[in-house]
């Protein structure tokens, strides 16, 4: 059983707020969220394959993550780094590379804080409209993110040598 749980809140008309705690140092959690060599190890579901993952943390630099989901097709997302303040905060734009949906750009603001050995990650996803936000909220973002974060909790425990 994972020690902590993902909290998902809808805020105002256009935001989704994700919050999750990890019993790991802030610097390590931040690294796991931003290092292209580590991201596929927890963000990609175990039944899928990460095709590639690149992250350029310069302002304006591109990140892109493509996942082969077998019979469910390809999940390809990209965006740009807008702020990058390790290990406290990053902001990026986020585009799902599917026609039409591609225009439903969002921004993600992630903040990391540590207290008593527990790091809290808060991610605010802001959409262009209420329709897009509600669509994202109903698309299974909570379930997908929940299992990815549980996966990350286990991965970081291994990295501690636990």
């Amino acid at each position, binding site marked *: 059983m994972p020690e902590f749980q993902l909290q998902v809140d809808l805020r105002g008309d256009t935001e989704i707020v994700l919050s999750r705690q990890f019993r790991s140092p802030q610097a390590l959690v931040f690294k796991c969220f931003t290092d292209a060599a580590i991201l596929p190890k927890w963000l990609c579901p175990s039944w899928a394959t990460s095709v590639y993952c690149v992250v350029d943390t310069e302002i*304006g630099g591109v990140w892109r993550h493509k996942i082969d989901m077998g019979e469910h097709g390809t999940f390809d997302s990209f965006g*740009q780094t807008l*702020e990058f303040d390790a290990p406290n905060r990053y902001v990026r734009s986020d*585009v799902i590379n599917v026609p039409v949906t591609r225009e439903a750009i969002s*921004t993600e603001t992630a903040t990391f804080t540590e207290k008593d050995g527990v790091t809290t990650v808060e991610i605010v996803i802001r959409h*262009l409209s209420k329709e897009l936000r509600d669509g994202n909220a109903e698309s299974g973002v909570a379930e997908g993110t929940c299992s990815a974060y549980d996966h990350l909790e286990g991965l970081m425990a291994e990295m501690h040598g636990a």
Partner: protein
Amino acid sequence: MPEFKLHLELRGDTEIVLHRQFRAPQATVFNCFTDPDILPQWLGCGMGKTILCVADYEIGGVWRHQMDMGEYGLFDSFGQILEFEVPHRLVRSYIYNVPVIREAVSTETATFTESDGITTVEIVIRHLTKENRDGHAASGIEYGAGKSYDALEEYLHRAKTLVDLGGPSFGPPPPEPLPPGIQVRSY
């Protein structure tokens, strides 16, 4: 006096819609809006001098435009190409590279249509919030975009006149060397 003028309209809570006509073929106007060699000839709100203009029209490719706006400082914007359908439609993300404001990402959907030799450009700018939209609308966009489009009309007119006179087909002048310290980064 310019033949046409910019129409600006606020739509819903988060959109700004720009309309402008040009007496030129659609393919030419589309090219003027997308070719990084031509953009610096007219885009600059009547005062900007382009330092860097690059665009990669692959889906997910980056565009970036840096202008020296004199006393107003450096204007640096970038984003990604989300749709690109020559000569009809261009969708891109738009980010104004200033701390804090950088998070106010918007999308621009530009559509081009031609009728009786006149091309109409419609640009829908969609913001994340009403505050961002209202801030953008109050930032002088009507003046700046109006000046830029007037400059494009003049550019298109000069181009047509040169071709009518049997001169060389109109292209951009040779690029000026970049000032020292400016690196062109290829994406």
